[in-house]
């Protein structure tokens, strides 16, 4: 009987408790570190996206300035306005000159943002010579386009919904 009355000291109990607490601490510390690291990586991507957008935007503004100088030069040529403008615009790299369905002159260009996106700009030009600000051209498009090539799989374009209805 006397052997059953211990003094309350259990050898090994404290070790088990410490191991349990440390396991919990390590798990939570690792989880918080992983979460913070993922947040930081996302922030780096945000920084890269914002910086590359404004770099592309600045490049597009510079091209716009070049186009406008060509338009101003073309306005001096009078009746030969559109051919002069077309010839001038062909000198600017990456700028595409065409006429839309109604015969109005349209200029478009792409500025790459990253490997899979580009800033697409489209301008509607005045068909007759004009020197006033806001009259030589109007910006009809200034948007980011996805230019990544579509990956073709065995069943068509990968990542696209095939139209199959998924019922729960």
């Amino acid at each position, binding site marked *: 009987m006397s052997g059953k009355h211990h*003094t309350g*000291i*259990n*050898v*090994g109990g*404290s*070790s088990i*408790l*410490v191991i349990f*607490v*440390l396991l919990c*601490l*390590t798990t*939570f*510390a*690792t989880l*918080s*570190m992983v*979460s*913070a*690291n993922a*947040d*930081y990586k*996302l*922030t780096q991507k*945000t*920084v890269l996206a*914002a*910086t590359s957008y*404004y*770099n592309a*935007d*600045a490049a597009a*503004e*510079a091209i*716009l*300035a070049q186009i*406008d*100088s060509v338009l101003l030069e073309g306005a001096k040529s009078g009746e030969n306005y559109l051919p002069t403008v077309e010839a001038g615009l062909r000198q600017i790299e990456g700028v595409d000159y065409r006429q839309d369905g109604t015969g109005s002159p349209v200029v478009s260009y792409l500025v790459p943002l990253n490997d899979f996106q580009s800033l697409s700009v489209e301008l509607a030009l005045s068909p007759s010579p004009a020197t006033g*600000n*806001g009259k*030589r051209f109007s910006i009809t498009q200034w948007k980011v386009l996805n230019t990544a090539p579509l990956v073709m799989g065995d069943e068509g374009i990968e990542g696209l919904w095939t139209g199959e209805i998924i019922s729960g």
Partner: protein
Amino acid sequence: MRGKYTSSKSGLFLIELIISIAFFAVSSAICVQLFAQAHTLSSKSGDINMAVTSAQSAAEYFKASAASLSLEELAALMDATSSGDSILVYYGENWERLPAPDSARFTMTMTLDMKDALAVADIRIDDSQGGVPLYQLTAKKYIA
């Protein structure tokens, strides 16, 4: 005999307790360090995110403003302070707007310039607790 057994058991328990406490102290110190690092990294990410948002907001103010707008008028539009050729915006510890630099932690400086018919805005956000700028952005606008 029984007393000797009890005292040896107490001694064993004491040794175990000492080892446990020592092990716990070392391991928990490492874990607390990890928690602190995670907290620092998380606040750094938050600050950079806010810096990017503020810089983008300022850049859009600049791009949307009329060419005829003066620096002082743009500063007034942004509810900011103008100084020389720069616009200054002050933020507190939690990115709240402050009217004066006295207790500001973050400062956004927007410097305006003209280069070849392009208006250039250099936007920089500094942290008073860190040496390098938190974020820098350059926005350009063609002035016809």
